[in-house]
């Protein structure tokens, strides 16, 4: 180990020390900021749909001709992380469900609409109990959404919306599918700001202070 005793070497050492210290401090700051940002975009945060702000679920009037399909078309995933979900506790189990049938299609010989509403055939209609052989209308039906087919387009939700339906079908974010993008494209495109981030941390500020 050599020790420099020359007064000409001291400024160089100091410079190196300061440079080294500066790099270390900068790295620590970057790691700290990254950690903070990473914590804010962690698994504790999630995107959710506010039903009272969503055009399809509760906001505004009913009618599939006014449906908003942003949840289906804006997600970065090939098949959106949003799905329609039917609350069976609220469902009326109607024989002619406007979320299942396209009620504006011609009526068939069985007295039911001839076409289904879902473009992806993602809703299954199952009779509950035994079928009444004497009265086809005297049956309750269970309507179940197929997760693998549904893309969250919102058509069924819009047709089930009050007052046309009972509002038992709504759109929800599937947390096992959602990538939790820091800048969610659905949220960016949602016309009513119904797509919100929820979690234990406050959402990061959209703009830096001072503009």
């Amino acid at each position, binding site marked *: 180990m050599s020790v420099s005793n020359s007064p000409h070497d001291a400024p160089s050492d100091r410079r190196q020390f300061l440079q080294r210290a500066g790099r270390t401090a900068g790295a620590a700051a970057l790691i700290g900021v990254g950690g903070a940002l990473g914590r804010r975009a962690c698994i504790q945060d999630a995107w959710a749909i506010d039903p009272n702000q969503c055009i399809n679920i509760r906001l505004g*009037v009913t009618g599939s001709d006014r449906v908003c399909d942003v949840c289906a078309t804006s997600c970065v995933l090939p098949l959106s992380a949003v799905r329609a979900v039917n609350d069976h506790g609220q469902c009326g189990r109607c*024989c*002619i469900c406007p979320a299942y049938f396209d*009620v504006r299609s011609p009526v068939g010989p069985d*007295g039911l609409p001839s076409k289904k509403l879902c473009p992806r055939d993602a809703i299954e209609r199952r009779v509950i109990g035994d079928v009444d052989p004497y009265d086809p209308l005297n049956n309750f039906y269970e309507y179940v959404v197929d997760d693998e087919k549904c893309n969250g387009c919102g058509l069924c939700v819009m047709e089930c919306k009050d007052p*046309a339906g009972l509002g038992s079908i709504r759109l929800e974010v599937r947390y096992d599918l959602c990538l939790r993008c820091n800048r969610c494209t659905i949220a960016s495109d949602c016309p009513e700001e119904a797509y919100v981030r929820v979690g234990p941390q406050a959402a990061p500020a959209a703009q830096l202070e001072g503009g």
Partner: protein
Amino acid sequence: MPLTAIRTFGSSELGDDSPRATGAAVDARGRLLVADNRRVFAYDASGACVAQNEYAEAIWSVATTATNRWYGVRGGVLEADIDGRIVAEMRDRQQLGRVTAVIALDDVLIVSDATHRVLAAYSRDGRRLRDIGRDVNTRGFMIPNGTLDAAHDPTDDTICVAHSQKHRVERYRADGAYLGAWGRFGMADPADFGGCCNPTNIAVSPSGLIAVSEKAPSQTKIYTRDGQFLAATAPGEFADESKNIALAFADDEALYAVEPQTRRIHLFSLVALEVHAS
């Protein structure tokens, strides 16, 4: 020619703190009675509120006879005099839920129980005499809208029921005998009942004309006693969100329609349309 209201009133007295207006009937003085949570308002033909009664429990339906009022409540029926003072009660808390229609015949009360989805006949002292419609509707009346409405046809003393999920009007005798039904699902023909569950409410005029109300789109329609379509309200008459529009006929065949959500009351004259029962 569409059915057009000759007068629209209400809303100022009916309370903002109430869930919604429910139940309507016209009394022997020609006043429209409207139930709104625990209160019943009386309107004269000009639309002025002339009386108000407040009660201890929510009133879900209103009916009238020559001298009395009848209120459907949870678990029973209240009998009041023509001024609204309670004079008797019929209770069956074990078997009766929310009573959304009452028909007072000579010695029998016909009640619509929306909770248990059944029509039942009771004696005036509260004995359950029989269920009506069970053998036809083995799974009960299917009423996703939460209201089972029925009306008395004074021309033949029968009961007309709005069976919403089956898209039809059913007719029964007071002894429970099923007399038939008419109506079907459809979105194109104005005579048909559209959506998931219509008609929601029903009333029968003194001459036997049948008025029904629907939701999505909200409207009122008039039929003959056998189901021949006669007229309907024009689009925009009622608010888009209106459903379970309560109906009541006056003695002169005037029809009142009460929008529960907006609390507006519409008065229609069928005479002006030259509508006749066949």
